[in-house]
């Protein structure tokens, strides 16, 4: 059985259909890269899968319809890392990370168990956030803030990690760090990742599978090498993608 199965997913905002009859599945160990030009509907797909926006069609996690899974149970199955974080108050890094254990702790006045502390420590260690624990998040750089939320989602310990353009406005060092951390997280059995990316090189380098989208529809879905071919990309982006990539690379040769 697939970890995630999406059947005939459609998302509409008013009269506008942004995702149209999309079906795909994700298995354990997969890193599915959702790629496509602006307005292709990539973010709407992950928002619909994580139940952030209303949608039509069905999404199954290990055979269970996610619409029927309670929020806490769903959070144990799926974790989401968004591209932007604006925290209004000066919470400490530790405050933010420990919220990752919310779905596991008792409902009212819940405190952390030893198991929770262990998971948080491991997430903090993995992301290298230990020196920042007492710092207010309002004093962090964009990259440090993104690592804080990555630690939160690692502490949440989901089976499926959903990343929505996680490195969009980060410098190269943080881009590399983030993707390597997610790759390390994925190496544990029973896990999978879906990420929306614009950088086709990152998609090729880290993705095991890719879903190429255009105007709300799937153009192609399969192994990354089979999907991200120059012929298909040229059709979607209306430009010679490989030639552009090579031109960029030539700047370094």
């Amino acid at each position, binding site marked *: 059985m697939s970890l995630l199965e999406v059947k005939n997913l459609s998302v509409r905002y008013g009269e506008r259909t942004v995702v149209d009859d999309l079906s795909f599945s994700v298995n354990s160990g997969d890193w599915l890269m959702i790629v496509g030009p602006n307005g292709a509907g990539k973010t709407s797909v992950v928002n619909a899968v994580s139940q*952030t926006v209303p949608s039509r069609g069905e999404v199954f996690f290990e055979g269970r319809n996610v619409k029927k899974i309670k929020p806490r149970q769903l959070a144990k199955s799926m974790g989401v890392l968004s591209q932007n974080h*604006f925290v209004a108050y000066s919470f400490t890094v530790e405050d933010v990370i420990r919220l990752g254990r*919310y779905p596991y702790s008792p409902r009212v006045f819940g405190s952390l168990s030893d198991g929770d502390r262990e998971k948080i420590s491991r997430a903090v260690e993995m992301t290298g956030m230990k020196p920042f624990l007492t710092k207010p998040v309002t004093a962090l750089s964009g990259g440090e803030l993104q690592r804080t939320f990555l630690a939160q989602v690692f502490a949440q310990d989901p089976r499926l990690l959903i990343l929505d353009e996680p490195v969009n406005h980060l410098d190269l060092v943080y881009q590399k760090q983030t993707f390597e951390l997610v790759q390390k997280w994925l190496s544990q059995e029973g896990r999978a990742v879906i990420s929306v990316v614009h950088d086709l090189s990152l998609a090729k380098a880290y993705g095991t599978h890719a879903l190429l989208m255009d105007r709300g529809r799937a153009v192609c879905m399969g192994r990354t090498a089979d999907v991200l071919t120059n012929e298909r990309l040229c059709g979607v982006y209306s430009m010679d993608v490989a030639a552009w990539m090579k031109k960029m690379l030539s700047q370094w040769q």
Partner: protein
Amino acid sequence: MHREGYGITEYLLFTAVTLVTLLVCVAAGSISVPLGETARIIWNAVFGSVKPDGTYASIILSVRLPRVICVALVGAALSVCGAAMQGLLRNPLADGSTLGVSSGASLGAVISIAFGITVPSLPFAGTTVLAIAFAFLSLIIILSLSYKLDFSLSTSTIILIGIIFSMFASSIISLVITFAGEKVGSITFWTMGSLSGSTYLNALVLSAVLAVCGGVLLGCGRELNAFAIGEDNARHIGVNVKKIKLTVLISVSALIGVCVSIGGTIGFVGLVTPHIVRMITGPNHRRLLPASMFGGAVLLMLCDLLARMLLRPLELPVGVVTSLIGAILFVYIFYTSRRSRR
């Protein structure tokens, strides 16, 4: 890893500070009663076998004690509502009145005063009953309109509808005042906010609502942390966003409705107290909510004392004092926080 909430020692300390402030505020006034005598009278009234009598006992037990208890409870309620709303809406300018429910409650009270509406079996409680009824009616209208406009009940929709409703209620209040005749004076004094003449029954109603709704808000500390960090983040970590939002809004509305019905419109306490407390405890709602509750009680008791003492034997409405002090404090807090960010 540090503990999130408070322990028994901190709660005992907060209680002690609140009780000492209460004692000082009961003792002080146009006729000052020695602190020891005040404590003895209250102790004997609560635990003694013989009921204390005399002028001091009469002043303390019949006038000041019920008033100061009500002031403390209203301060606690307004502040915990302010802290909860600032977290839920991620807006440091929010407080219990942001939702528009307090304007609704005011409309109910103003109608009651202007037209002399009373409840047959409780002739003294007409204003209170109508204010609470209007508070709940306002909440139902605001949430129904928000739900009709936006199925997900987004905070921006709720704020917008709340503001529009507030303006609507204020215009009706002005209309009612136009036809109020000789009652204009009473209405104006009531809208300035005052707890003079509060009774033990008022204190009982306030205590019951604060115990239930305040307790619910304190229990939502972690969820409010998640909301303050971001509503989407809250949803992603498993918070039942719609349920928590409704729980907080209903609890805040009930508290604000009861406070407005008893004390009128008392501004700035709900807005400023969480800001002062946040500077000491940090933004974590597991600490911020209980500390705001105690802090608000102490702050409003001190403001009420000032209202009684500044121009004695004349008494100012406490709402005037809180607005004056609150506005200055708010400017100071913003000035210092902006400077520390540079």
